[in-house]
């Protein structure tokens, strides 16, 4: 190695000085970012911390004494056992699973072919129909509860799972999402298969869907969460208590017969939140990547 000249050493020294100032600045900036992140995380997350702490506290005397209440008092599963004893929680859970399972399956079966047709096939009225789909997305679905209630009444679907599920699978959102994705498929591949004599249905099953699994996964998970959390429509259309999903059944019980015991309420809330959190933890990358970007 050759020896450094005096000039080079001076330049290096100046650079090193600038470097150390930069490091201090960058550490300060990172510290500020973490501070901001933690403050917001506390604001967003503390309600859940408290719910969990109260649900786990056998002794309810300290649950309103902050900040002590953020940690459980005399931790036990006492209140969770009470909830399962007095509330048909597992029936609600089973209903939630059944209803959201049906919604997801039906949405996939309907939205995927429709999205493919809007993206890849030519037919008279395609643009016009798609415009109609988009228009319904601009209007909140709550606007439709009265007509949908009457429709279900006429069809004899009140208080049935079919009545609770049907309006949810009629949403244009899934078709929109799948169309956006199927438009990006390379047309050379599709056209080559067409020239080779493959029908559109085979094209969809053997080329389009295998090339779009992340988009299908995104649609599945978004539909699942929306269906699982749907409160208003099942509350309107169902009235047998043992047919209710968690979102309605737990809410009705906690604001009705069990409203007096805060500990019981919090334990029930924990039970209602845990399945969602487990599912979210496993699939969060699909949410955090966003609907807009279902490619990767």
């Amino acid at each position, binding site marked *: 190695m050759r020896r450094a000249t005096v000039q080079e050493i001076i330049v290096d020294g100046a650079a090193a000085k600038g470097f150390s100032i930069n490091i201090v600045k960058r550490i300060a900036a990172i510290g500020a970012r973490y501070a901001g992140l933690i403050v917001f995380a506390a604001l967003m997350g503390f309600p859940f911390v408290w719910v969990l702490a109260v649900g786990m506290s056998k002794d309810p005397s300290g649950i309103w004494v902050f900040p002590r209440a953020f940690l459980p008092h005399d931790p036990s599963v006492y209140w969770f056992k009470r909830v399962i004893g007095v509330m048909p929680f597992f029936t609600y859970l089973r209903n939630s699973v059944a209803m959201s399972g049906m919604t997801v399956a039906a949405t996939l079966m309907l939205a995927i072919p429709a999205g493919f047709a809007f993206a890849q096939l030519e037919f008279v009225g395609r643009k016009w129909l798609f415009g109609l789909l988009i228009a319904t997305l601009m209007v909140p679905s709550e606007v439709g509860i009265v007509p949908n209630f009457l429709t279900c009444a006429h069809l004899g679907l009140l208080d049935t799972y079919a009545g609770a599920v049907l309006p949810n699978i009629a949403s244009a959102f899934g078709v929109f999402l799948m169309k956006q994705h199927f438009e990006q498929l390379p047309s050379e591949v599709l056209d080559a298969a067409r020239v080779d004599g493959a029908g559109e249905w085979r094209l969809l099953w053997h080329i389009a869907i295998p090339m779009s699994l992340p988009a299908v996964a995104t649609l599945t998970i978004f539909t699942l969460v929306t269906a699982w959390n749907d409160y208003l429509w099942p509350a309107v259309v169902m009235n047998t208590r043992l047919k209710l999903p968690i979102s309605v059944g737990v*809410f009705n019980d906690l604001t009705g017969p069990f409203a007096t015991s805060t500990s019981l309420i919090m334990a029930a*809330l924990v039970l209602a939140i845990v399945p969602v959190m487990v599912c979210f933890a496993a699939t969060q990358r699909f949410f955090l990547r966003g609907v807009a970007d279902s490619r990767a």
Partner: protein
Amino acid sequence: MAKPGVGRHTGYLFIAPFLIPFAVFSLWPLLYNMWLSLHDYFVTEHVAVWNGFANYVTLAESDSFPYALRNSLLFLLVVPVIQVVALGLALLVQRPLVGIGLFRAIYYVPVVIAISVAGVVWRHVFEYDGMFSWLLITLHIIPEGVDWIGLDKLSLYAAMLFSTWKNVGYYMVLYLAGLQTVPKALLDAAELDGAGAWMRFRHVTLPALQPIVLLCTLLTTIGALKAFQEILVLTHRTQNTVTMLMWMYSVAFGGGNGFGLAAAVAVLVMVLCFAIAAVQFRVFGARGIWGKGT
């Protein structure tokens, strides 16, 4: 441009299975509301009788509906708040940092919790000796606990705070996706030219985000106009908290033959949503305020 070997009617076969439930449960309600809003509907007899514009007249003369309209318009206050907080959060979690994934997930959690379940949580957070009062007392903002839900004048704002908390994570993700599209070269060039962080944000990031701002503003505006479940699960539904759709729900399912009146409200909300969508496309769209440059 025809596709090789594709039948002319194949497209219809692909969309038909979707189109049937869509027509019955998404499209029909919009048309049926318009028809129903001009009728009196008698539930037990299943008959509708034409009544001209009586339902709309009833709305205009109602003592309580103007409050519902006012409350719904007040709820629009969450639109700018959500934009600022969501964009702020997106900027905060944009660049990689140890544990950043965990923070993103925490901010998103309220979105995946059922609104009814979250509503019960926040009923307790808003108690006079609850967490929210404690926080503000600790920060010396208020001297003693406040019953945020029980106090009629405050509960609408409590519902807005709840709505912001519930939804901001969703918009954070949309803004995060938008931030990926900001050209890095432009940001670097601006920095070389001596632009500070704020100038870079104002003149590079924000104009590049324009389509996302449009999308998010549109979605939050519709979200605010349809504010209803927040009110239903959180508040006591008094005159000062009932929003348009909450009012609609009450007249439809609260006894009495209110379906026609409810449909009139639904039509009003629908028209409002379309109008706002049109205005926002004009203001924020490519020909709008940011498109021309400054």
